[in-house]
């Protein structure tokens, strides 16, 4: 309860009542209030939160620790995978490690959402070493690599470093190639992929939990690698933090995170595919999860107007990075299946997600089945790690980034980890 210092008892009493009234009805204007402010700012993760609900009031986005967890404190042994798989710590000390990209010469690049850095994991004389490649960036979440060049997607610009693997020790300065982007903080961070058409693909998220987005937002775009020829290739998309191209059909698949505060168990996050570039609309903000007309924006609309997801990935599970598994180290059934880093829920009393999830496709690109593969990131309804991205390695193993511990893990099959050897 609020108490006013140095105010007379009568005034304090009056204000206590006023404060109590606000506690019950925070959006009610009063005669003394200045010009009405909106109930909540457009980007607030709290928009839609039910009033006077204790369970809901406890929920807020989980803040990632600002410092990387020391290697010996990372609980890799708590992670569980089917028999035959092994998980080991690949590298640590990269606070808020997010998207992964692989260089031609074996450098693993690691982006970050809340820090200002892109890291490089390099092999030096047989020893793995983490170095800061670039500092001073603004939310450099998205990374892609092609023909010697590293592309970096910050909040509102995309830049590149040519011949980056020859410059790992010289603090290279990225060259901006594209900056015609909104500067919204909410869902402003980007995932970056490079397509079979040699164009850069990225998201421009909805600047809100749920709102009518401006025409510049809630979409996927692509550009040429010199930043020219921007095209909007899909609309009605709330936020995407992972995408990859089907190696067989070259069709773009992407994870999409759905709105908060609808309920504990709805809507479900989605896996989409883009069959009609430039035409498909995936439904935001009218249709949630592919099957629920939004209680606020869905009136007069039907989910049948929009492109359906190929599958649902669970409520609030936050599927982020995803890659088709192209290697041969894992058993044959995993080949060409989609591996998804589900970051895990915040908008749900009992946390779910926080795992590596696999979606198996039919030949026609539809979904055959899906299951969890690696669990254990949630212990007693708390995170001990949060997977953010997955990436194929040339030997068929897979890397997983963890933005909670600032670490990268390596998943192998049939090979004992260093600890077991």
């Amino acid at each position, binding site marked *: *309860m*609020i*108490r*006013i*210092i*140095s*105010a007379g008892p009568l*005034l304090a009493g009056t*204000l206590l009542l*006023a*404060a109590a009234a*606000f*506690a019950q009805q*925070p*959006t*009610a*204007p*009063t005669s*003394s*209030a*200045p*010009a*009405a*402010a*909106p*109930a*909540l*700012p*457009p*980007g*607030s*993760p*709290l928009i839609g*939160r039910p009033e006077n609900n204790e369970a809901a*009031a406890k929920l*807020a*986005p989980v*803040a990632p*620790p*600002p*410092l*990387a967890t020391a290697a010996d404190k990372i609980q890799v042994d708590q992670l569980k995978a089917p028999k035959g798989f092994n998980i080991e710590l690949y590298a640590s000390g990269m*606070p808020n490690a997010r998207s992964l990209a692989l260089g031609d010469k074996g450098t693993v690049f690691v982006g970050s959402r*809340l*820090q*200002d*850095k892109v890291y490089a994991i390099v092999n030096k004389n047989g020893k793995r070493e983490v170095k800061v490649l670039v*500092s*001073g960036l*603004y939310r450099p979440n998205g990374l892609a690599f092609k023909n010697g060049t590293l592309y970096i997607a910050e909040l509102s610009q995309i830049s590149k470093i040519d011949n980056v693997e020859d410059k790992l020790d010289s603090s290279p300065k990225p060259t901006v190639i594209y900056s015609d982007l909104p500067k*919204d*903080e*909410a869902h*402003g961070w980007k995932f970056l992929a490079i397509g079979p058409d040699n164009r850069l693909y990225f998201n421009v998220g909805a600047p809100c939990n749920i709102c009518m987005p401006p025409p510049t937002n809630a979409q996927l775009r692509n550009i040429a690698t010199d930043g020219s020829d921007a095209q909007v290739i899909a609309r009605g998309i709330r936020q995407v933090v992972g995408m990859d191209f089907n190696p067989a059909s070259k069709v773009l698949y992407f994870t999409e995170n759905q709105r908060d505060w609808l309920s504990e168990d709805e809507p479900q996050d989605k896996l989409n595919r883009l069959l009609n570039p430039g035409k498909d609309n995936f439904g935001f903000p009218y249709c949630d999860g592919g099957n629920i007309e939004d209680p606020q924006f869905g009136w007069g609309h039907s989910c049948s107007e929009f492109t359906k997801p190929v599958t649902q990935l669970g409520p609030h599970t936050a599927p982020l990075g995803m890659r088709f598994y192209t290697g041969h180290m894992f058993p044959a059934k995993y080949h060409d299946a989609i591996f998804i880093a589900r970051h895990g829920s915040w908008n749900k009393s009992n946390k779910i997600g926080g795992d590596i999830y696999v979606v198996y496709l039919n030949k026609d690109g539809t979904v055959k089945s899906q299951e969890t593969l690696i669990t254990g990131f949630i212990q007693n309804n708390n995170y001990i790690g949060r997977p953010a991205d997955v990436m194929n390695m040339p030997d068929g193993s897979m890397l997983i980034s963890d933005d909670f511990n600032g670490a990268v893990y390596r998943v192998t099959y049939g090979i004992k980890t260093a600890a077991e050897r």
Partner: protein
Amino acid sequence: MRKFFLAIAIGCFTLLPAFAQTVKQRIPACLDCHGENGQSQNPDVPSLGAQQPFYVTVQLLMFREHMRVADSMNDATRGLSDDDLRNLADAVSNLPPPRPPDGPVDEARIERGSALVGQNHCNFCHTPSFTGQQNVPRIADQREDYLIKALRGYKDNSRHGYDGTMAETLASVTDEQILDLAYYIARVK
């Protein structure tokens, strides 16, 4: 006036021993500026007492990495290890909470500030007691001038938050409203 503040800032930080090893050795230098027991007497310098350790760690990190720019603090955190940041944050959080200013209170401004808190839902993340949680700072009884400075910084994006929440929140808040918010929050308990 500006020169006076600058002199304070320089005075404070020249006292900081560059190679101090322990938190116990370092804290007095912090308190030279941030005040006895963390209750700041210096304009634009925040009180530190009972601050959320997670938030303090984030801010120290941002100062060290120049993600938040303030020369004195960028200098003060140079070369600190991650453990130093954690330990300093814990030490600061154990200082007593700051006290609100004495003196008469402008009832109309309190009422306007309280209404704005409700409208902007400050009490959601900062909690109804304004004592904060995790990376959301305690703001209760913070110095009014510092609150104004922080809010203006978030609004014009000269101060980057660890995440974008405050920039988004302030987008629709006017400068006049910032003054009333700060007035009110500096005087709650």
